[in-house]
């Protein structure tokens, strides 16, 4: 379903990677590994369509994602490095906005249960500015609990700032989603064993010079 064909990425004068090919089907988990500066985040941004490839293409069901645009983005959930959390809004308001931008409105009860699932149910009416980094990350990741319909999750360092309990919860969410037949691509520096039938790995190696 998600295919990278002869993908090349350059940032400024540096070529981060080139000739990258892979195919990810539903029910498969793909971990992008590599040193800092090796191009993990750039690869995820390429897979989302936020970045234009210097060469090659990314395809979704055989169609170039840069042609599909909104049709592809409507099926994708991307949680980036930045949490997309507003300090002046409450946890529930932030989550509602993230879902609305993703194209679906969510009832207050569903927002509450998603935040509960991530262990921050008691903070739903607190402004994000008083939440810790880990709690803010949990708010961002609570969107996953409301995105079971999405066939593709792309997660950039989802475990950053999370405590051990939250890491377990997110791992379970990823495993369940893959078991439902969806594809998940993620990067992490944490060595984790996520229990899925097919787990693939791409190592981008050392940082490009």
């Amino acid at each position, binding site marked *: 379903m998600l295919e990278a064909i002869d993908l090349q990425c350059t940032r400024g004068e540096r070529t981060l990677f080139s000739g990258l090919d892979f195919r990810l089907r539903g029910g498969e988990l793909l971990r992008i590994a590599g040193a800092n500066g090796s191009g993990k985040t750039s690869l995820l941004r390429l897979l989302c369509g936020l970045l234009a490839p210097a060469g090659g293409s990314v395809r979704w069901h055989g169609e170039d994602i840069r042609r599909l645009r*909104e049709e592809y983005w409507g099926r994708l959930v991307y949680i*980036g490095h*930045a*949490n*997309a*959390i507003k300090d002046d809004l409450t946890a529930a308001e932030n989550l509602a906005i993230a879902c*609305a*931008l993703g194209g679906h409105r969510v009832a207050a009860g569903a927002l509450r249960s998603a935040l509960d699932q991530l262990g921050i149910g008691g903070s739903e009416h607190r402004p994000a500015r008083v939440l810790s980094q880990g709690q803010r990350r949990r708010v961002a990741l609570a969107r996953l609990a409301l995105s079971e319909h999405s066939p593709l999750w792309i997660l950039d360092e989802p475990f950053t700032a999370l405590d051990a309990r939250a890491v377990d919860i997110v791992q379970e969410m990823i495993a369940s989603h893959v078991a439902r037949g969806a594809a998940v691509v993620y990067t992490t520096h944490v060595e984790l064993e996520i229990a899925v039938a097919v787990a693939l790995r791409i190592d981008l190696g050392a940082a490009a010079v």
Partner: protein
Amino acid sequence: MLETAVFVIRRDLLLAMRRRSDVLTVLLFFVIVVSLFPLGVGPEPALLRTIAPGVIWVAALLASMLALSRVFAQDYADGTLEQMLLSASPLSVIVAGKVLAHWLMTGLPLVLLAPVLALQFDVPQNFLGELMLSLLLGTPALSLIGTIGAALTLGLRGGGALVALLVLPLYIPVLIIGAGALDAAAAGLGAGAHLLLLGAFLVMAAAFAPWVAAVALRIALE
């Protein structure tokens, strides 16, 4: 699609309510700039009546520009803009929603305040209607054009100064037509033709600016 735009407008208005100082800064800037001129040029009523259209329009234009850098900067910094770019709704629709919210927070209050401030210039009563109407048509056009500049300079060092250099020349037609409408009204010629031109400018800006800004945002985030 429109539902997302409405949601973005509500979100931006909610954020503005929680950060009222941002909106009040623009309004206070407008009040102070307009009020400085009668103090600076003296109390001669004929002179004040002559300069009133230009002063009010230039102040509105500068006040509108003051808030431009905030249209996308905070969403860019916290990662929300990435999510907007990956929305299932077209980015131009989201940008249009943000422009409308920006105008409701910064442009509409200027329209409502302008007649009160115009009293300092001893302008006739019948001038106030045309003043409000010209600003009602002109300030959304300023927000639309300004959004293009804000998108083009997003993430650049010294973006605030650059946006002024980019946007001010583009504001000139609106300034000439808007101030011209008030001059015509003051001369008893009627402001109809100028207001129609402003309306046409607004329609053209509404048709193209969100689309151009959306393209600029995609380039800025690459």
